């Protein structure tokens, strides 16, 4: 029999417990505070040699199926007068490097591509079930147990960074190696880039060299007119890059 006295004790206790009922199982990375980080990446066009190390490393680290890419490298050729129509090739995403170019002269350079981890990401906005998510530390991820495979997000991404996994039939994308960066490691692509063309950046860490770099170098994001709040910062990006 519940008396008024018991109810007065029970109600606050239930209210306190409710928080934990809603929370479910506790987190597994206890030393990592999500609110203390804000992740992005710096990609230096001047340093990329098109070796494909990043593509191979990403593939291995994240078990990316053959023929699909979470990151890839493009080779641009821009003749002086054709800024609007550059010649771009990316044989197998650059996973085996690049054969000699069929062009001579003009501007030639490599552009590593990946998810831009946008602040206002179009892919997260279109997901009908909340399977594509924006973490408190600024990473766009896919909850594959919740994804329906409807492909909305794949169409919504203006950077073409997503694909449907051929056997799981769920959306896949660069996770910024979330399983690594939450353990204090850098991403697989950054770890394996031999020239430092890729650098993981924590924009909330005042000691991160990214701040000095952004202050002193010309830096651009891809498709800035879309106002996606992209956090993949390209150094010395040519205007022809799409």
């Amino acid at each position, binding site marked *: 029999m519940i008396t008024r006295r018991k109810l007065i004790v029970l109600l606050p206790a239930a209210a306190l417990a409710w928080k934990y009922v809603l929370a479910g*199982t506790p987190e597994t990375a206890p030393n990592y505070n999500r609110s203390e980080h804000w992740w992005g990446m710096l990609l230096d066009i001047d340093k990329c040699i098109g070796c494909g190390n990043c593509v191979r490393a990403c593939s291995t680290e994240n078990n990316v199926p053959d023929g699909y890419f979470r990151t890839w490298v493009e080779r641009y050729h821009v003749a002086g007068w054709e800024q609007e129509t550059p010649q771009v090739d990316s044989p197998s995403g650059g996973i085996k490097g690049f054969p000699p170019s069929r062009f001579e002269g003009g501007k030639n350079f490599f552009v590593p591509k990946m998810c831009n981890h946008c602040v206002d990401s179009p892919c997260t906005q279109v997901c009908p079930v*909340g399977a594509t998510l924006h973490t408190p530390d600024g990473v766009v991820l896919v*909850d594959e147990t919740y994804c329906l495979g409807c492909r909305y997000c794949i169409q919504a991404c203006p950077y073409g960074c997503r694909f449907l996994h051929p056997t799981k039939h769920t959306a896949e994308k660069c996770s910024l190696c*979330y399983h690594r960066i939450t353990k204090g490691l850098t991403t697989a692509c950054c770890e394996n880039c031999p020239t430092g063309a890729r650098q993981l950046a924590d924009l909330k860490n005042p000691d991160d060299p990214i701040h000095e770099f952004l202050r002193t170098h010309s830096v651009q994001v891809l498709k800035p007119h879309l106002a996606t709040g992209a956090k993949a910062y390209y150094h010395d990006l040519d205007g022809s890059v799409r």
Partner: protein
Amino acid sequence: MHLTKFKDAEHLVRLAGAFAIVLVLFLLIRAHFIPKSFGQYGHYRGNALAELSSKPVIYAGHNACEECHSDVLDVKKVGKHAGVNCEACHGPLAKHAEDPGSVVPQLPDTAVLCVRCHEENIAKPKGFPQVVGAQHSSGEVCKTCHQPHSPLLSPGEKKS
């Protein structure tokens, strides 16, 4: 009140009862299917973050390598390859870092390894050292002349 007694009022009561039952059923089913952690950080399953960050690491990271192989680090850090991390050439070795005995890394073949980066390509940055592999060494593997951890030829040696 006796004036406004609606004829067949029990129909409405029954309808309201049916609505109430459907509503309760809907709420119960909804509560059953929505994961407990949904909405913890945003419009998604909060536990997904912990699940995604608990995936296994394949590349150990250079700090793990340097704990044991400090002799290699001493050679490497003064050479041209100071910025190249171990696994960029030696491959993913997190298993070796966890238990050195279980996985013994294979020594990479410099004949195929070095040209991945150093084969000439028009799109590479101009200052980057590049060679035409086929002409550069007349068939000798790279490590005959260059030590991979510190690849510049020493001043006494002649460039071929």
